[in-house]
């Protein structure tokens, strides 16, 4: 019995990592993998709310609305303040025909109430309109100089141009990285990819990335400790880091102006990545 438990513990990922991975699996359409991972994690941490949420989402994807609903209701019984669960439950209710009917009923009831209240609301709106008209007339009475100070106008214009050119440049830069992500994710086995630029901003495709905010502390501290080890041991510049855990492989490609983070299902595509990545990242 003890051995069995130990085996389970050994297989069980820590909450941080299994939630992130399950979320990634779900985001990439690997629903069964997400369900398996969440269930394994919940055996060890049965009250992990994030895991229940991901599992509910996966159940929705599978079309098991009732199961998902039950899970969310249980979750809300334990923590009635879980807003994500509330939102998800509301979504399910909208999807379920029976619940939809109930909602329609509620809406009609609400309408009946609102008709009686409409008159008073209209009165308030009328009062606000009147206030607005008076304020407008007051502004009209101000001299032109007060309304538009000429100095401010001159200063504002170049700022606007500068800001728009910077925005354009960053947009172009981000677009080029998005192209790279598209190419990288086409490589066999790659589940996920994102870039971290020099200023710390993350470039990612919304349809591919799950909870990278949870993974970044791990990848970041790993990158920093390896970099400092490299400089202390004088083993040259860091090129690639490859971290293999039971549920997948993380690759970090260290470049001068950015870091490229990759997540793969298995490590068997390393040779391919090593050959293709330098060309893509050029």
């Amino acid at each position, binding site marked *: 019995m003890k051995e069995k438990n130990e085996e389970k513990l050994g297989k069980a990922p820590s909450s941080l990592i299994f939630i992130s991975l399950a979320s990634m699996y779900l985001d990439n359409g690997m629903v069964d993998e997400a369900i398996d991972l969440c269930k394994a994690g919940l055996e060890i941490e049965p009250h992990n709310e994030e895991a229940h949420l991901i599992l509910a989402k996966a159940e929705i994807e599978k079309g098991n609305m009732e199961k998902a609903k039950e899970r969310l209701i249980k979750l809300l019984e334990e923590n009635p303040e879980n807003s994500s669960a509330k939102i998800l439950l509301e979504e399910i209710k909208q999807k379920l025909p029976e619940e939809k009917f109930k909602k329609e009923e509620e809406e009609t009831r609400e309408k009946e109430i609102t008709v009686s209240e409409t008159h008073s609301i209209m009165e308030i709106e009328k009062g606000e309109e009147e206030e607005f008209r008076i304020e407008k007339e007051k502004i009209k009475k101000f001299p032109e100089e007060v309304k538009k100070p000429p100095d401010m106008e001159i200063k504002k214009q170049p700022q606007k141009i500068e800001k728009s050119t910077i925005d354009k440049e960053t947009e172009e830069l981000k677009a080029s990285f998005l192209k790279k992500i598209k190419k990288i994710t086409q490589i066999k086995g790659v589940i996920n990819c994102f870039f971290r630029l020099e200023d710390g901003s993350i470039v990612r495709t919304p349809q591919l990335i799950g909870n990278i905010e949870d993974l970044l502390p791990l990848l970041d501290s790993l990158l920093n*400790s390896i970099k400092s080890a490299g400089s202390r041991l004088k083993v040259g510049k*860091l090129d*690639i880091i490859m971290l293999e855990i*039971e549920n997948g492989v993380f690759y970090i490609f260290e470049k001068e102006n950015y870091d490229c983070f990759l997540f793969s299902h298995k490590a068997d595509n*390393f040779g391919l990545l090593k050959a293709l990545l330098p060309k893509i990242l050029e």
Partner: protein
Amino acid sequence: MIINNNVDDILDDILKINSVLTTTISSYEGLVIKKIGVEVIHRKKLTVEIAKIAKSIREHLPKQLKHGITLSVYFDKFDLLIVFFENFIISVLCDRDVNMGFLKIKMRKIIPLIKSSL
């Protein structure tokens, strides 16, 4: 930690692989438990740095993993393979032309033997 004499033979097997320079078993505190091979980098320094890397991994990843956590780091001059276990760390320092795939397969085979010898 008590070490069985078989560990020497097991580590010797790794050292026979082309381009493998040194193999070390160390603790999470940075202590060298068993060392074998050419000392290209000061071994004590290396195990201390590995312990630092292990600390950052332990903060974020589970302590108990059946197959351990494998970290391969590719530097300009050397390649470094580190396998983290519950109580100890195995690190292998290699030249850049090492066949990392073959080394990992070999490591997977010998790890249960090392576990039973410690």
